[in-house]
């Protein structure tokens, strides 16, 4: 009886266990890993991807995905810098609005015009990248704002970086939306069986547009968080973000086939990825090799996901 429960814990919490194992090893090999500074650094890195990861989780539960999140994030950063002349608040609001509109358009393409999400969001990715290049005139642009810096580098109670607080708040809020609201549960139904969901009167198109718009909104928010630390934008930023977010969410066990998963699980996956990235840096793995490893990891994770889906659906 006890053994069974133990096995169940291992099965359900395997990501957390892996994170703990990696952390233990690193703590021994590279003691700097467990310094507060490094741990909060990990959490900061993870906060950007997990804010976007919330949107990606909504999409994947509804059996869609979005390849334009990286470009959309940089798009928000760019808009915020360019519009800061008209006030910080206005710049931020305009940036988040712009990203939300981009996400909304993705939703319209997928849900209303029935273009598959791969083509829609790939086009949006290219489109936004072009737009950023046009807006920045192919330069790296920068803009400073003390208020934003004090957010990016400030700490709540002097310990927890504000971006981490923001990410945590958003994670909790949208975890509740997904698990405890009619809207969230309907999204699961859509991902599980779109045709049937439509038949039972669920507004499938509306939900999909909502999920894409939410993803756009969150890309905007993370673009602002990025700006609060980096203070600059260019067309070359954010290229790896797609990979990190999709890998992380998949790693957390959110299936590409939809209908399953939770924000909490997705966050675990993203955290694991963050810890791994940090570990690679501490172990002096070159950035190029990191890219290779991340790519291979995504391939492995999707293989496992598909293998399980195939085993479950063998008919």
């Amino acid at each position, binding site marked *: 009886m006890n053994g069974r429960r133990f096995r169940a814990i291992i099965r359900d919490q395997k990501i957390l266990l892996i994170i703990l194992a990696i952390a233990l090893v690193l703590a021994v090999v590279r003691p700097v890993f467990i310094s507060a500074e490094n741990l909060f650094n990990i959490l900061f890195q993870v906060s950007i991807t997990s804010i976007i990861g919330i949107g990606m989780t909504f999409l994947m539960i509804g059996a869609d995905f979005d390849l334009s999140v990286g470009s959309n994030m940089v798009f928000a950063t760019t808009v915020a810098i360019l519009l800061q002349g008209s006030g910080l608040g206005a710049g931020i609001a305009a940036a988040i609005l712009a990203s939300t509109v981009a996400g909304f358009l993705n939703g319209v393409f997928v849900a209303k015009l029935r273009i598959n999400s791969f083509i829609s969001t790939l086009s949006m990715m290219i489109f936004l990248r072009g737009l950023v290049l046009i807006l920045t005139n192919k330069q790296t642009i920068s803009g400073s704002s003390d208020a934003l810096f004090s957010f990016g580098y400030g700490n709540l109670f002097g310990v927890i970086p504000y971006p981490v607080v923001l990410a945590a708040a958003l994670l909790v809020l949208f975890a509740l*939306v997904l698990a*405890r*609201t*009619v*809207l*969230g*549960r*309907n999204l*699961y*139904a859509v991902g*599980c*069986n779109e*045709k*049937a*969901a439509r*038949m*039972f*009167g*669920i507004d499938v198109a509306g939900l999909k547009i909502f999920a894409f718009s939410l993803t756009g909104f969150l890309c905007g928010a993370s673009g602002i968080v990025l700006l609060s630390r980096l203070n600059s934008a260019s067309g070359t930023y954010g290229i790896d973000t797609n990979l990190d977010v999709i890998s992380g969410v998949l790693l957390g066990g959110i299936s590409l086939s939809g*209908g*399953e998963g939770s924000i909490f699980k997705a966050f675990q996956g993203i955290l694991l990825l963050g810890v791994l990235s940090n570990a690679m840096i501490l172990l002096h793995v070159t950035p190029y090799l990191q890219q290779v490893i991340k790519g291979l990891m995504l391939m492995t994770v999707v293989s496992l996901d598909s293998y399980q889906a195939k085993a479950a659906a*063998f008919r």
Partner: protein
Amino acid sequence: MAGEALLRMREVRKTFGGTVALSGVDFDLNPGEVHAIIGENGAGKSTLMKILCGVYPMDGGSILVEGEPVRIQLPKDALALGINMIHQEFANFSKLSVAENVFVGRLPRKAGFPLALDSRDLLLRTAEVLGRLRLPIDPGARLDSLSVAQQQLVEVAKALSANLRILIMDEATSSLNLRESEQLFATIEALKVEGISVVYISHRLKEVMDIADRITVLRDGANVGTFPRGHIEEAAIIEAMLGRRLRAAVKKAATRGPTVFSVTGLSIPGKVRNLSFELHRGEILGITGLSGSGKELAIRGLYGLWPSRIERMECNGEQVSISHPSDGLSLGITYLAEERKNMSVFPQLTIRENASVLWMRSVWRRFVVSRRREREASLQSLRRVNVKMAGAESPVDSLSGGNQQKMLLARLLMVQPEIVILNDPTRGVDVGSKQEIYQIIYQLAREGVSIIMTSSEIPEVTALADRVIVMSKGHKIAELSDAEVTTDNVLALVTQAAAADEHG
């Protein structure tokens, strides 16, 4: 008098492309009545009900509910009128809980919060509905943790949880065993008590005679009669369905050829136990039983389409194994899958390209395909099974269902197989094409091809086969040959087996 009927459908017409599916059908339903619709595949049963549910628009006719004309154009129109259908496959959410399935699209909200889900209320109300049907199912369980039968009963609960007045069940028992069917019938009785009317579509005559208050028979898209229970004999219904008196198939005296193929100890965990049989040259071997008996899985396992364990398989005296369809093809064994659209037809391609699929294998080693030879070989095979088409270069979607099925037979025959496995060869085929397909199967056997077949309709197997293996619960319970092969004998055997199971 006229005010009594809950539902009246009048002169309902529907055509698909050029095919008439319904030619002016009338159908009435009284409150609290179980009204069965029976008919062969393609008779129009499902089309009529899909019109009532707003899945298809009708081309002509009228629908009256309590005497008032209504317009049903979308599924939600039907739902608003309290008309609900239990769909066979695509309507449930396997990864969600029972409660979420029951209240899908109508999840209860908490007062005060705009979108908050009231999960306590959800569970309570689900438990209440399940209680009304006396179903011992946990509302919080994931749907895919239940048996198929329980999932189907959840569908009934789902319908009942809305303002249900008319429940349509389409082949509801097709994947249930006898005891599960009994539970479903008990549930239907519970619905009747609540004054809910049930339309029951089935081709299982026996159960229809047991539970229906009235029986309507459809044939070729027309209503050929509505009969109150107890006023009609089974044979009369069959006659109405088929439009002729059933001829007792003449069994030829068996001069059995040599054994060409044998299987010893075919097992699929939990589904088929230790099935063995031999197949003779030029013989039609039927494998039959009720749904869930394992007959279809056995055939799939045999051909490497379901994980199975086989102790020994021999083809022409040599030990062989089939772990993938291509192994079967190499042995000269071809296979017709049970689902035409999902498992057999390649949409977007031409008839020729569809027909030559297996033939391609024979030229795979030569790599370059001769267009001329492909066309000749396809045409020859397509003509042999009499596919009616504008030309072999037309898209395959231009063929009617029956002609597509014949085209699929042409595909199998194009490689001159020694053994042909037919899994439900007449599913979704009109009556005319059915007869043609039977003729093709007879002709093949006469030419020395050995055939293994199964069917969702037991009479079809007994009419065609020289020898029949009867299965129940994954076991072979009997083997009948020649004159013993009758529908009555098979039914008696499976009923006995089920009864024995009940008590033992």
